[in-house]
């Protein structure tokens, strides 16, 4: 059993998402940084999509009521197991009674905003409609369909001391697959249906401006601040399916990027969509930071998707090789 010690809000149980139910009105949910969640699981020998806790407000602390292997990935939050530091993107072994504390991510060489606490076997919350991720709007999935609260107790799928080594880690994908433009995190974007209905100035601004992530940004969507993007004429659309990554431009002209808890349909004009392979970069971009959009082609988007797949496959393979040799 793992007990939530902190009162910090907005931590949720997530996996890689719930798919195939958009036509029931059910969005995908899932980790804002799916690479970090998958990496933490792979360090522990779990399936990549095992459930973990996504932490977005710090400090955050849990107590292990039994021995359990764990991994902390995502933002560097100076984790500590009791008084021992735990390196970022690292697997460790907790003893019964140990507490794991995550602090607010600070500078360093890469600043993330969300950390993942993974445990051996994943968190054993019941799967709902094929996933263990929390569907906040539908109030199901995850732990009782809600964010975690102090005192909540979650079971690990495979607690104990196991025979798989811990005490090793991974190079974060921000280093393995860096993407920056002029010092900002960059994300690649494919133009969407209404792209051509925006002004030339809007097009230029979209690709050249720095977009600040405003405090009104969360798992549902990121509201960005920057130049106002205007259509050449008012656009009224009929509702249609949308996916995480869609950049909508409401009347005010300030973009909203749909994120993992976004509703699966919408009707605001879409200027573009952040490609799937780069959503994790956005998921880790802290409030107040600036990002840039980079135009890309379909072939580049496919290549980027395959690159992240290869990265995960390599992590899985090398972690397994290391585990096999033991420590």
């Amino acid at each position, binding site marked *: 059993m793992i007990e939530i010690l902190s009162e910090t809000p907005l931590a949720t149980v997530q996996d890689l998402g719930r798919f195939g139910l958009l036509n029931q009105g059910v969005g995908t949910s899932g980790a804002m940084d799916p690479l970090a969640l998958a990496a933490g699981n792979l360090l522990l020998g779990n399936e990549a999509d095992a459930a973990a806790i996504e932490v977005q407000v710090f400090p955050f602390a849990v107590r292990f009521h039994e021995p359990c292997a764990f991994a902390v990935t995502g933002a*560097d939050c100076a984790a500590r197991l009791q008084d021992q530091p735990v*390196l970022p993107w690292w697997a460790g072994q907790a003893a019964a009674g140990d507490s794991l504390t995550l602090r607010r991510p600070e500078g*360093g*060489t*890469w600043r993330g905003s969300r950390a993942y606490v993974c445990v051996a076997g994943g968190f054993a919350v019941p799967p709902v409609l094929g996933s263990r991720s929390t569907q906040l709007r539908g109030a199901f999935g995850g732990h009782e369909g809600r964010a975690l609260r102090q005192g909540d107790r979650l079971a690990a799928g495979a607690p104990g001391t196991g025979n798989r080594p811990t005490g090793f*880690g991974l*190079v*974060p994908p921000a280093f393995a697959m860096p993407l920056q433009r002029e010092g900002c995190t960059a994300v690649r974007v494919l133009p969407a249906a209404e792209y051509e209905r925006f002004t030339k100035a809007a097009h230029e601004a979209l690709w050249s401006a720095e977009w600040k992530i405003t405090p009104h940004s969360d798992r549902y969507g990121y509201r960005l601040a920057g130049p106002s993007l205007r259509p050449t004429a008012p656009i009224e659309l009929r509702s249609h399916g949308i996916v995480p990554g869609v950049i909508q431009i409401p009347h005010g002209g300030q973009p909203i990027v749909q994120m993992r808890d976004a509703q699966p349909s919408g009707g605001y004009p879409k200027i573009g969509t952040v490609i799937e392979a780069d959503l994790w970069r956005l998921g880790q971009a802290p409030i107040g930071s600036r990002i840039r959009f980079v135009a890309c082609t379909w072939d580049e988007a496919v290549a980027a998707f395959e690159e992240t797949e290869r990265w995960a496959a*390599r992590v899985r393979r090398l972690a397994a090789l*290391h585990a096999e040799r033991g420590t």
Partner: protein
Amino acid sequence: MPIAEAEQIAAWLAGTDIEFLELRSADGCLTLRRQGNDVAISREGAPAPQEAAREITVTAPSVGVFLHRHPLRDAPLVRPGDTVPAGQILGLLCIGPLLLPVAAPRAGTVARMWAAHEEVVGFGSPLVELLATEGTGDHGH
């Protein structure tokens, strides 16, 4: 040495002419002394340490790229002069996406880094020189 064993020895001793027995081991010193028909048992910690430090060269457990600092951190994991407990991570070996720890085999002071940050090393390459302080146990009498 477990108490049960010490008592067993004391029982044997009681049936002999031996007045005094001192057993020394890495764990400490056990003294058995006849006092009439009884045998008194006393124990001490490990013998007083040789104060001289011992040099230990920490070597690479595998092929890899030696890192002085974690990729997410600006500061090195340790610096020469740092005192470290046994098990402390002194550096990392980067193998593709993997990071394997290079840990201090015992407590001591970091004397120098043999391998540079981001140097490619092989199994057995010297990485860190540690001055291990022996006998860090209690010195009581």
